[in-house]
């Protein structure tokens, strides 16, 4: 290697090879010292255990993100409360006053508030979930952790927002003359199941969004269509109970997961209508139908939560080694 002789790349001797590697070969040497294939996806239960081990990361990341969310706005954290209030105000103006959907619905304001907040939780979980992988490529490439932490965090951020929203729900319920009963407590298990459902949905769209970046563009339109099908701002009965609607469609409307979650929570909070307080039977029936809760509603909530929670987790885990590539 003298500087006078010059170096011709083609004439360099072959590079030195580790003697043990030369003797055993890569696979056997790796097996001898217990080395594992890099970036290989762990088995499902091991993955779940790793995820549990990173629970502090999930909560820490969600809290940090939530704090930074309104850091550019002058009113700061006040927006946590203002955003849902303004949301409801807009829907109340459009659907309660302009389109008079409030007709025949008991306690329309509370009815609307529950619908808007619960669906908003699902919608934002999905939209943020779809971006959770593609927005954090730097983090994914620098540090190793189970990638499911990110969509779960995205849902957790929205759950914290839902917490603020539920404060408004309680205020509205008290202000519109509902009295607290034991059935209010049933809202809590319903929201737990809804969170599991939303986490599953977030993981499904996170995987889609990581491969097909168009997902994030498309999702707002899909979720908005879904919202209009869920009876968020009108009573499902006014559509489903019309003559000529096939029974299957009716079932689909009532058992559609977000619609079912909204209906159950509404029934927990809004007192069942009493015939005496309505001028005629038709109005009374409209009020009863507006809150109609289909049979076995809680059982179906449990089913939806487990099906999408577990299904979404498995679907996300299947592509674990592919996140952060490209």
């Amino acid at each position, binding site marked *: 290697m003298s500087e006078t002789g010059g*170096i011709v790349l083609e004439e360099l001797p072959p590079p030195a090879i580790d003697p043990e*590697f030369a003797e055993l070969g890569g*696979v056997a*040497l790796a097996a001898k010292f217990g*080395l*594992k*294939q*890099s970036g290989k996806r762990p088995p499902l239960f091991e993955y779940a255990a790793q995820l549990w081990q990173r629970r502090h990361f999930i909560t820490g990341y969600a809290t940090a*993100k939530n704090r930074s969310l309104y850091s550019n706005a002058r009113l700061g954290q006040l927006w946590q409360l203002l955003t849902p209030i303004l949301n409801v105000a807009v829907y109340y103006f459009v659907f309660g006053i302009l389109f008079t959907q409030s007709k025949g619905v008991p306690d329309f304001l509370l009815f609307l508030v529950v619908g808007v907040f619960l669906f908003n939780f699902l919608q934002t979980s999905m939209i943020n979930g779809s971006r959770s992988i593609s927005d954090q490529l730097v983090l994914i490439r*620098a540090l190793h952790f189970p990638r499911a932490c990110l969509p779960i965090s995205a849902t957790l951020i929205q759950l914290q927002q839902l917490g603020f929203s539920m404060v408004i729900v309680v205020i509205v319920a008290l202000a519109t003359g509902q009295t607290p009963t034991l059935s209010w407590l049933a809202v809590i298990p319903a929201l737990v199941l809804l969170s599991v459902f939303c986490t599953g949905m977030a993981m499904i769209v996170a995987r889609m969004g990581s491969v097909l970046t168009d997902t994030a563009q498309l999702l707002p339109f899909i979720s908005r269509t879904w919202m209009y099908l869920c009876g968020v701002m009108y009573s499902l009965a006014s559509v489903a109970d019309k003559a000529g609607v096939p029974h299957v469609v009716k079932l689909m409307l009532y058992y559609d997961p977000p619609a079912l979650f909204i209906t159950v929570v509404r029934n927990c909070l809004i007192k069942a209508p009493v015939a005496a307080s309505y001028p005629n039977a038709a109005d009374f029936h409209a009020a009863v139908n507006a809150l109609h809760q289909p049979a076995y509603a809680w059982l179906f909530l449990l089913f939806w939560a487990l099906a999408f929670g577990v299904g979404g987790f498995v679907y996300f885990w299947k592509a674990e080694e592919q996140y952060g590539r490209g």
Partner: protein
Amino acid sequence: MADTPKVLPSQVLRAIQGKEGEHSYSEEELAGLRAQIIEERAKRRAEAATSQPTVIVDNLNIIYRIHGAGTGRGSATGALSRIVSRRAAPTIREVHAVRGISFVARRGESIGLIGRNGSGKSTTLAAIAGLLPPEKGGGVYTDGQPSLLGINAALMPDLTGERNVIVGCLAMGMSRVEANDRYQGIVDFSRIQETNPHAMSLPMKAYSSGMAARLRFAIAASRDQDVLMIDEALATGDAKFQAQSEQRIRELRASAGTVFVVSHSMAAIRDTCDRAIWIEAGRILMDADVDEVADAYEAWSKQG
């Protein structure tokens, strides 16, 4: 900082070659220092040669598949006409970036990867980190999960430096208590508060690239990693920080970890690495003692 060398290997070499400006060493002292450096390195390499392997790269081939290169995916009319005519994306071009690389890295080794831009160094590191799928017929095996430190900007740009440190620690698997304990050490190591006392409360997107690189290095190096890979992450730091992070790399190496360094600075490679691998056009040209490889690479680069 017990094992800080009095003089860095690259400085001794430059002094012997007469390139280092003023220094207070006589020729005999320099020769003695050089001999001592070479002897210590040979000892470390001999020890590492029989220690446990941490990374086995076995006939690694990486092919990038680039969709729609040439014709614009960006043009809306192009995309539309493709959808209408139901043609598949026009061209998939393959770039064979790494062509059959094999080597073994062991505990206590620090390995410099050198070569020209586009020779496949960063791709090799990404494959070791498990971020790129190797082609069939080869594989990468590692002990634990290697961490890759690149030069990209902030970890979480919209979060403050403070949050980045805590959340980064949690992401590496530390507990909340552990992360809080390490916090001050990481901030002190990064030294970003020396120039701006409020730096930690600013969002990381407000940092200069050098500041961000320092903080990221401090976070990743805070934990004794089994395998740490540094892809030119030190290049953006100032001289003082470079010296400090090179010291940290030597400590990691001493605590029986394995460190990979990609750098175009031969001085940085000589000061931190015992062994070097020269990669050219996706193949290994040399894999030997750092001085031998760096000398050959420098001589070859000068040939033009």
